[in-house]
């Protein structure tokens, strides 16, 4: 079964359409009902007259989408890039979906075609009638990095209303346990649970999409690498010596390369800082489509911040979203660094952190970074659990290195001095301390400042957040930890357990 993927598309919007589109998106976002649909009468007045559908009851029926985990529309208002040049408004549309892209797009058009047409009719160009498919696909943008918190699980498997979802199974098992009397032994409990499931008619969903085990994680791997090296040293000492010398030389070269790269970035940074202030001073805030005086680039007004915060935790305390847009610092060097770091994050995210944690953060369903506007801006979408405050706290406490590595290449980021010559040695130490699990990880960090400047980093993040007008989640009541835990429950139900494993499995219920 094809895995979860990310679809992102961007559409230009003319200045005069910014306000009406904003109004429509706000109305859609505010009026998603408990039944996960948007009624026609809530938005009718905001649609272009040619696209009104008299008699239609529903504008958008999210509940009919079977391939969508998360979906959002975000209007990016006109802005200025790092050098003070204008960036036109655009509309971003993004989904985290299951299966082949074609089937996903087909489903979107089938279930929400008219609504999509109505929304995109404010873009430039608007979709031609009947050409929505190619319209969407042509506007698609590729991401630099994409992270999934519960890879391999389809929406149906996680939540579907059918009897097959892992959440339904967990609930059925819970009911089985809640009846009295309490089971006396582990074996009792399991027997009762298996019976309860038999009765509930739960059918195991596909076992595809097993998360791969992280390859770096196992101690035995390191041991076997060590053993091979040792064998090599004994059997062919001269070759071993040559290889050893070669790797030391390679390591020194790497340190020199990364070190000088970092040193140049540090030098550039000083220039960039003064330039950023100058651009701000000279240009002032960019034109604001609604004519009010909001300063746009940094230090947003309270009103704007309130709009962002009021959109948070709108559907309860469990899930949340963030859209963040920031200018990339000028120069090829920055862009290249950004690409390399994001490539590395993407690699780690898809190969290493496949057990529901990015770095150590166990609360991110999906996140992606995309370079937009001819690589002048970096766009970040995230679907995460709980509050902004806890999310940012996790960023700072558990993932500051990666985030500093990315965002130090963007404007107004809290000052970061790259410890150029120490990056590689520190990275090595970091890898070793993660492997040994005994090392004090908090003591080993690549960067000292940047995102570690707690208050400044939080303020910077807020300054560059953009309201997510429409946000939809298919399973708003589940956290990442829940989803992964429920999978473990489902997998373990009919698996043979040894005594200790059985105890661990029962604790997941």
């Amino acid at each position, binding site marked *: 079964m094809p895995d979860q993927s990310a679809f992102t598309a961007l559409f230009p919007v003319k200045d005069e359409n910014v306000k009406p589109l904003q109004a429509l998106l706000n109305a859609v976002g505010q009026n998603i009902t408990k039944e996960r649909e948007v009624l026609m009468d809530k938005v009718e007045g905001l649609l272009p007259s040619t696209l009104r559908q008299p008699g239609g009851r529903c504008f958008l029926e999210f509940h009919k989408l079977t391939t969508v985990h998360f979906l959002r529309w975000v209007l990016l208002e006109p802005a200025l890039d790092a050098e003070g040049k204008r960036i036109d408004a655009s509309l971003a549309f993004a989904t985290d979906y299951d299966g082949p892209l074609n089937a996903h797009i087909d489903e979107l058009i089938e279930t929400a075609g008219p609504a999509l047409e109505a929304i995109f009719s404010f873009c430039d160009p608007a979709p031609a009638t009947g050409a929505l498919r190619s319209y969407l696909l042509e506007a698609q943008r590729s991401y630099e990095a994409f992270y999934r918190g519960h890879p391999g699980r389809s929406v149906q498997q996680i939540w579907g209303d059918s009897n097959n979802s892992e959440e339904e199974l967990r609930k059925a098992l819970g009911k089985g346990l809640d009846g009295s009397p309490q089971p*006396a032994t582990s074996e009792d409990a399991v027997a009762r649970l298996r019976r309860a499931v038999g009765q509930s008619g739960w059918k195991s969903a596909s076992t595809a999409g097993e998360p791969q085990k992280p390859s770096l994680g196992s101690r035995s791997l390191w041991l076997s690498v060590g053993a091979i090296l040792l064998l090599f040293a004994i059997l062919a000492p001269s070759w071993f010596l040559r290889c050893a010398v070669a790797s030391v030389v390679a390591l020194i070269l790497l340190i020199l390369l990364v070190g000088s790269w970092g040193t140049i970035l540090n030098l550039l940074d000083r220039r960039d800082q003064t330039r950023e202030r100058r651009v701000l001073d000279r240009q002032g805030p960019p034109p604001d489509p609604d004519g009010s005086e909001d300063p746009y680039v940094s230090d947003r007004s309270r009103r704007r911040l*309130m709009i962002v915060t009021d959109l948070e935790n709108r559907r309860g305390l469990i899930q949340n979203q963030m859209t963040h847009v920031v200018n990339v610092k000028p120069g090829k060097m920055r862009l290249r660094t950004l690409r390399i770091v994001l490539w590395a994050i993407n690699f780690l995210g898809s190969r290493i952190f496949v057990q529901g944690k990015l770095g150590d953060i166990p609360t991110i369903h999906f996140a992606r970074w995309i370079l937009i506007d001819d690589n002048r801006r970096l766009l970040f979408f995230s679907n995460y659990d709980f509050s902004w405050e806890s999310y940012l706290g996790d960023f700072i406490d558990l993932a500051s290195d990666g985030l500093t590595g990315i965002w130090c290449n963007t404007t107004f980021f809290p000052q970061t001095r790259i410890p150029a010559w120490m990056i590689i040695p520190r990275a090595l130490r970091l890898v070793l301390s993660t492997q040994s699990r005994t090392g004090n990880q908090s003591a080993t960090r690549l960067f000292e400042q940047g995102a570690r400047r*707690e208050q400044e980093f939080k303020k910077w993040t807020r300054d560059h957040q953009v309201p997510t007008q429409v946000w939809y989640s298919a399973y708003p009541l589940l956290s990442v930890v829940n989803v992964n835990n429920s999978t473990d429950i489902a997998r373990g139900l009919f698996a043979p357990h040894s005594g200790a494993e059985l105890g661990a499995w029962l604790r997941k219920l």
Partner: protein
Amino acid sequence: MRLSGASGVELSDIQGLVQRGYKELPAAEYILLQVTDVPRARAWLSKLADRIEPATATGHDKADRASALHLALTYQGLQALGVSKELLDKFPLAFREGMATLHRERLLGDRGASSAANWRWGSAPCQPNADEEGLCETDPALHLMLLMYAKDGPTLSRIKKSVLDELDISGLHTITGLDTVFLAGPECDPTGSPNGPKEHFGFRDGIAQPHIAGMPSREDGHAIPGNIIPTGEILLGYANAYGEMPEGPTDANGQGFGRNGTFLVFRQLHQDVVGFWNYVARQAADKGYGPVELAAKMVGRWPDGTPLVESPTGPKSTLQTHDRFVYAGHHSHPDPFGLHCPIGSHIRRTNPRDSLNEDPQRSLELSNQHRIIRRGRSYGTPLVADMDPTKLMAASEDHAERGLHFICLNAAIDRQFEFVQNLWANNPKFGGLYDDPDPLIGVLDGERATFTVQKDPVRCTYADMPRFVQVRGGAYFFLPGITAIRTLGTMK
């Protein structure tokens, strides 16, 4: 001159409430005030500054202290007294906006009967885009709070009278007075004195507190290594857990108006004592726990204060005020899975200590970034005079207004108080759970609320848990250093 402790913490400038909860002063009242005549109010503040109890070093007149007086101000209060916009803008957003924005109501769970629109006092609900400043005004505007503590009722009345007599001629209007009550339990301390203070559900309160680095350790023992938090976690002007100056009106060296101040969070929390014990009695019936045992599982301590993680089978009089424990890495009976003290119990959620993730040492560090100092007191007559749980359980509903005037101190309201209430108490997913808000103070955020007790071979859950605590009022205050109060008094 400011008197510094050994570590440079300026004890003589810090209000004593930061250092102690005044257990020896069981009578207390809080008076909410509005400034009506600015020059006169300032003159009054100048005089008041000399009467405020400082946090001066240990041993200081503990036995013969008869009373203590403290002052806190809201953002509107600072504004009314003419603090410059430049200084005001340096205060953190949470304090400037107040407790009752749409965003904070969601995070704190202030919905339905608890929503700010229904509060008896405090911030009025704040509409987004309400006006340019986005500020919330109350009517009458809440500006100041006087906190008065005394060794007994008559002393308190005397002080209150002397203060109130002055108020009328001092350009201040009294909005309301919030009285408190000291609840003693049926058991006795190892010292033989009555066990307390208790809160209305019948549990000993006011035990666990973090220790502020650089402050003298509390009366009852030495600071526990894992329980010490950097000075700047509570006080402005000192480095916090990230090695930075907390946000507020101080300069990079920590000097300025904000120095030695802290933020005081006040929530009037109504407690449904009959509802609580009814639920517990009903649920306990068939799952192998007695009602008091189940209630103790919800709190994480036995009614007399004994921590469950230390003594899961019953209270021990020597452990009543015990605070020197961790969960996952407990020295004699580690409890990583909550078999002794449930993961979802009130005290394990509001301070998970070493059990936040798989790494106990790192957990302790992370937990300590969200600590608060609690200074609340109960109010309203107890349902049963001696707070005996079995009698509480048998008592019938009297619909009396009783609860907790919850007060806590912290330097970063959003990272400390709001975080604890939101992420650890209200969040039904805490610790990997599914539908479990904090059984005492949590808020329903889904279809149902349950309470889960982890045990062998498999957990049991208690369903349909209602909300036992409702919010009746509240506000964010600034508890300034004593010099800052003088500054307020002399401002032009």
